[in-house]
């Protein structure tokens, strides 16, 4: 496979580890809330503080979500799994160990189909395991400040096989995975809140070589862009070293976005010895097969299925289908606006209305998508009016701009904007007069049209619009023009 990011003859091998926060009310083993953004150390409990005598009790919703993640990525979901302690000391790790899964995780051997540049690739999922999140340290001159609100929140770690060969594949895999977690409501997938975090394992080798090179793990990747850039930078760093006969040391590196390079983590040179040991506080996790079957049967439509449905049933093009299906909310908005009038033509038109017109307007007004949720049906009406020529492109742009730039509630803002912009009201008699005059003034063209030169219709249409200064209902104008051209002689 050729790779535009690397010198000729080299390829990179990428495996990804994704930590996704499960959407639960309470933590994995403790009972404190998981709500984001609370004051430091206000959402803690004996378990997440590591108090003497505090014991973990498993949150059954976290277990269900982890299993669902497994089913949605075609994993084997095991009826038995084991929690282990991963022992190390750190300020934001209150118990001195993290409860995680290692030897017997809940899900193994999955597979994700990912579409990149018009081709499908298959990415193996090595395993998905449950674990606790760590707390958060803020480093100041007075010392590091530790907040344990996040400590103990339920995570799954999704470990891919090293099946990815380009940064584009890596990003496509991550987007697909994130969409799946959103569709299944396993995670809110927010990169900003840190509920979807990625570490990348990168190694390089000469094309044709089958053994894996020594890999480095890159952390601190908090956007898709960072992931793409960091992988390219790291692969090139490794190739430079190899070309100079310098060995690659297996290590953990941090992405420095400002300098555009990965850097070895300081102070972490000592080899870890995590001393994994089955957690004696937690007997084996057992899910009976009936419940597993039920969860599997209850899986919602996944992004790939929905894309296929949009392309087959609604004849959407691939690009639009991808855009609409990337987030379930987007697809939901699309389907709400589509309503019951599901012709392929209208679907395509609404798809582009959403992905071009609305997306542009929301971007320009710096608003959030969820803010239009209350007016989806009204927006569908606006779309239909635009499609029917009752709104020109310019009128639509103005309308959306007005509706979104006001801080009012969106319902009245949209109503006001619609009233202000109005609709193209056609005086059909006046329209016919204009058309008749034009035909009279251009007899040669009219005869040619009637003789079969149909492309001249556009010429007349342009003249009509020009005469009406753009304030014409294109649908009515075109119907009237066609009629007039055919009947005149």
């Amino acid at each position, binding site marked *: 496979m050729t790779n535009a990011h690397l010198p000729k003859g080299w390829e990179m091998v990428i495996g990804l580890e994704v930590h996704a926060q499960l959407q*639960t*009310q*309470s933590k994995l083993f*403790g*009972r*404190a*809330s*998981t*709500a984001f953004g609370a*004051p*430091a*150390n*206000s*959402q*803690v*409990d*004996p378990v997440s*503080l590591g108090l003497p005598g505090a014991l973990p*009790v*498993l*949150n*059954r*919703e*976290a*277990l269900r979500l982890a299993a669902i993640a497994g089913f949605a990525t075609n994993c084997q979901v095991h009826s038995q799994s084991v*929690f282990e302690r991963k*022992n190390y*000391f*750190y*300020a934001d790790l209150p118990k001195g160990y993290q409860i995680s899964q290692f030897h017997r995780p809940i899900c193994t051997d999955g597979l994700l189909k990912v579409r990149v540049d018009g081709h499908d690739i298959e990415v193996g999922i090595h395993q998905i395991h449950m674990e606790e999140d760590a707390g958060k*340290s*803020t*480093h*100041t*001159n*007075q*010392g*590091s*400040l*530790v*907040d*344990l609100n996040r400590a103990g929140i339920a995570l799954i770690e999704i470990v891919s096989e090293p099946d990815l060969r380009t940064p584009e594949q890596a990003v496509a895999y991550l987007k697909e995975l994130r969409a799946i977690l959103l569709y299944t409501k396993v995670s809110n997938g927010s990169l900003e809140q840190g509920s979807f975090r990625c570490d990348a394992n990168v190694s390089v080798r000469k094309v044709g070589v089958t053994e894996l090179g020594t890999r480095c793990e890159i952390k601190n990747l908090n956007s898709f862009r960072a992931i793409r850039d960091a992988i390219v930078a790291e692969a090139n760093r490794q190739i430079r070293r190899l070309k100079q006969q310098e060995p690659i040391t297996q290590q953990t590196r*941090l992405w420095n976005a400002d300098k555009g390079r990965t850097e070895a*983590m*300081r*102070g972490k040179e000592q080899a870890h*010895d995590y*001393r994994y040991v*089955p957690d*004696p506080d*937690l*007997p*084996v*996790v*057992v899910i009976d097969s009936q419940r597993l079957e039920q969860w599997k049967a209850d899986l919602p439509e996944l992004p790939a299925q929905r894309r296929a449905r949009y392309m087959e049933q609604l004849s959407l093009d691939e690009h639009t289908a991808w855009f609409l299906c990337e987030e379930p909310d987007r697809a939901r908005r699309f389907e709400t606006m589509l309503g019951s009038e599901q012709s392929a033509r209208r679907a395509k038109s609404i798809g582009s209305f959403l992905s071009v017109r609305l997306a542009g307007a929301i971007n320009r007004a710096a608003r959030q998508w969820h803010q239009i949720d209350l007016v989806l049906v009204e927006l569908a009406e606006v779309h239909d009016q635009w499609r029917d020529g009752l709104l020109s492109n310019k009128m639509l742009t103005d309308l959306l701009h007005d509706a979104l730039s006001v801080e009012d509630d969106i319902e009245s803002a949209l109503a006001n904007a619609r009233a202000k912009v109005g609709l193209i009201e056609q005086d059909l008699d006046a329209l016919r007069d204009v058309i008749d005059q034009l035909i009279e003034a251009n007899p040669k063209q009219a005869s040619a049209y009637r003789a079969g030169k149909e492309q001249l219709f556009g010429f007349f249409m342009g003249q009509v619009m020009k005469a009406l200064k753009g304030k014409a209902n294109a649908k009515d104008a075109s119907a009237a023009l066609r009629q007039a051209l055919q009947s005149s002689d």
Partner: protein
Amino acid sequence: MSEIKIDAQAVQNAARLARIAICEQEAIELAKELDEVRVWIDQLQQVDVEAIAPLIHPNHQQTPTRADIAETPINREQALANSPQTADGHFVVPRVVG
């Protein structure tokens, strides 16, 4: 098992993993004591356990689960009350280099 021995180096390594500061002299003395215990423990090597699965939980079939309900078992003030050093609602430790 005869090649395994707890020497001062092994003690220092375990003490470092366990975050317990010990000086060289202590490591030497501890190594001697602990290696005696190790020799005694090595009785366990006499028996063939290849076909025996490890036993962690003597009386348990499976872990129980709880409903996903958020509570406030400990408030912020209680959480911080026992700490040797706090600031601004946080626990404070020496600055960690990132």
